[in-house]
């Protein structure tokens, strides 16, 4: 129970701070911490393989991509100036977010959730592999295709268009 509380702290606090910070780089770095917390949660819950995956994908890959994106878009204008509409939007966001939080909390707390008596059996990596390659082969293949296509799409979208003429700059 304590572990879970620590994990919650490690996860929520950096996330909240990251959302509030002005500097995007800092936000990104803090989010890495939050993602690591989530990995810890997976570990705590007994899904070790998932925890490693979370670390590899989020902490390792996505954070790097985010950093690159921040750096690539950074040099002209920072997200500094508070535009007249920014404050209003922040307030509205807080309000709505709070409402959602309230609703969710209300829903969770008002629902009795019986817990299964059996302790979680460990899901081995071997078991996962068998599951993936037998029952979910097609899904696995589709995900592979999806990743390839996403990669190609990202390359195409992000590649600097050498032929970009004046009409592209509109």
């Amino acid at each position, binding site marked *: 129970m304590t572990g879970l509380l620590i994990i919650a702290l490690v996860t929520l606090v950096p996330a909240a701070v990251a959302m509030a910070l002005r500097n995007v780089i800092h936000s990104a770095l803090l989010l890495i911490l939050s993602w690591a917390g989530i990995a810890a949660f997976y570990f705590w819950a007994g899904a070790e393989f998932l925890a490693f995956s979370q670390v590899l994908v989020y902490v390792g890959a996505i954070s790097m991509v985010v950093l690159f994106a921040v750096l690539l878009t950074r040099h002209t204008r920072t997200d500094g100036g508070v535009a007249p509409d920014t404050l209003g939007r922040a307030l509205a*966001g807080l309000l709505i*977010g709070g409402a959602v939080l309230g609703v969710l909390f209300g829903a969770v*707390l008002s629902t009795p959730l019986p817990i299964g008596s059996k302790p979680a059996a460990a899901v081995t990596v071997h078991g996962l592999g068998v599951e993936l390659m037998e029952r979910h082969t097609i899904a696995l293949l589709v995900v592979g295709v999806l990743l390839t296509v996403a990669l190609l799409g*990202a390359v195409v979208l992000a590649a600097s268009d050498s032929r970009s003429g004046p009409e592209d700059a509109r």
Partner: protein
Amino acid sequence: MILTPLHLCLLLSSALFCIGLIGALSRSSSILVLLGVELMLNAANLNFIAFWRYGPNPAAGTGVLFVLFSIAVAAAEAAVGLALVIAIYRHQRSIRLQDARRLKG
């Protein structure tokens, strides 16, 4: 009213979700909006694991598999989303989300 560990897990994921949501709603940098969305996704993954862990049949490993696919999709989404951000930036010279409204109907 008994607060079980499952309740706690759900509260955690709800809080994370709302942080992501507030971020996505209030920040104007599209990168941060994306990161908020990413957090919301993670919150959803937390729920899967929680229900798997405390569900009636944890031996099946369904929740784990689901999250695994979800992570894969999230990775794809992040890559494409950030590429879009870069593309928008190239056209607009800005990453402010409120500036990207050329697709207005």
